[in-house]
């Protein structure tokens, strides 16, 4: 099982899945905070809505389009970005 660094904490996640699926498996059903402060999670599952975006190794990526990889550093995007 790959290990990712999730908000600085090492977490084991399933292999061969999207980062979105891995985040859910790690208990993160919500991926970001909206401009007005609502918790949000993935909506479209296919790269359109950008609700599932997170910081991956320092750049913003849509987790639904990103295959999970061992050693990924994953953080929540700063509010509003």
């Amino acid at each position, binding site marked *: 099982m790959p290990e990712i660094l999730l908000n600085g904490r090492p977490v084991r996640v399933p292999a061969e*899945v*999207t980062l979105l699926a891995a985040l859910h*498996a790690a208990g993160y059903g919500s991926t970001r905070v909206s401009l007005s402060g609502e*918790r949000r999670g993935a*909506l479209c*599952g296919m*790269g359109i*809505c*950008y609700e599932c975006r997170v910081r991956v190794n320092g750049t913003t990526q849509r987790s639904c389009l990103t*295959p999970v990889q061992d050693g990924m550093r994953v953080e929540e995007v700063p509010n509003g970005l």
Partner: protein
Amino acid sequence: MASEPLLTPDVLVIGAGPAGLTAALTAAQGGASVLLADLNPGPGGQIWRGLKAGQGGEAGDLLRQVQAQPKVQTLYGAELKLVETVQGRNRPERVAQFGTPGGARRVQAGTVILATGSSERFLPFPGWTLPGVVGAGGLQAMVKGGLDVKGARVVVAGSGPLLLAVAAGLRAKGAKVVAVAEQAGVGSLAAFGLAAARSGGKAGEAAELAWALRGVPYLPATFPVRAEGEKQLERVTLRTGRAEFGLRCDWLAAGFGLVPDTRAAALFGCALGSGGEVQVSVWGATSVPGVYAAGELTGVGGADKARLEGFVAACAATGQVERLHDAPRQAESVRSFQAALGRSFALRPQLARLAAPATIVCRCEDVPHAALQGCHSWTEAKLHTRCGMGPCQGRICGPATETLYGWRFSGVRPPLSPLSIADLLSEPAPISPLPASQEPI
């Protein structure tokens, strides 16, 4: 800063679903070199997401044939950003710039076949922004990407035959499908069933779905009016007639039909029809010379229509007109199915009135319904409220505002999606085949 090397296939196919795969194969069979590009990490598009060459059925067959074609190169994880027109050897050619995980790639081709498919229509209702409220096709895609739904309670809602396929797929993965709520009424569904039965092959599919969904309530004339939960979805309220009832659930998978994805076509300058689809000739030619369109973006009609159009457009684009003798008969069959889809699953007017004043319509910029009600057009809404100006660039709220306010969602401009500064500044790298370890997930 962008410079050589530039990829220069004879034909650029954008989208690797049923239409794009068929088009790539057909063009290569006619001797053309093809670059097949797709946003996803692998082939299949939405309907065949996660397609593997080892799998059976027509999708697996098609992919194996494409992979056996030395003239087809693939570029996955490639998102179209910019298009320019340049003078080619003897006619104008297009240069398309893609963002990929490996940096920017530029492709110049005299012939482009757009097969960008469709995306779901989402409609705002109170609570639709809660985590756990997702698209119907959306949840299906997430599950194909490895999301675990075993034991989860799911309500599937919205409209269209996709709901049944989604429900069956979720159930196969161990989800407890609490109900499937279809907004269309019984009469429409019966009419659609008859039309589908007349269209060869569809009756068998319907019987399989019915068997896979035995015991799951299928509720016609029923739609979601509210989703509630503390931090995430806990419960959805459905309405049928004047009655409302609540269902406890972990996921609400709600999609209100499909919308042709015409953004790439708009970037190429292709004219759109009154229904928001790309206008094409019987050969799939768009209003822009050298640019063809095939599949859902010319009108939502399913995978059979997409495959036929991919074949026809590629034949027309690469001078293989002799292969088209049977196309008119097949076209009639897919068109009648397409028409039945449109008629039977037309959205009921109440769906445009579900949003409360405080309900967010534009999720990127958090613009509520109340702020948009005073606007008269998409452009005015963008200027006054920032509706449609966030990262998704109106791909979610644009189709919603069509339904809610009758606006025409327009104004695509480059780049199509956020472009990184690194991509703008980088030298485009040469393309190389994916290593075996990068099998699509």
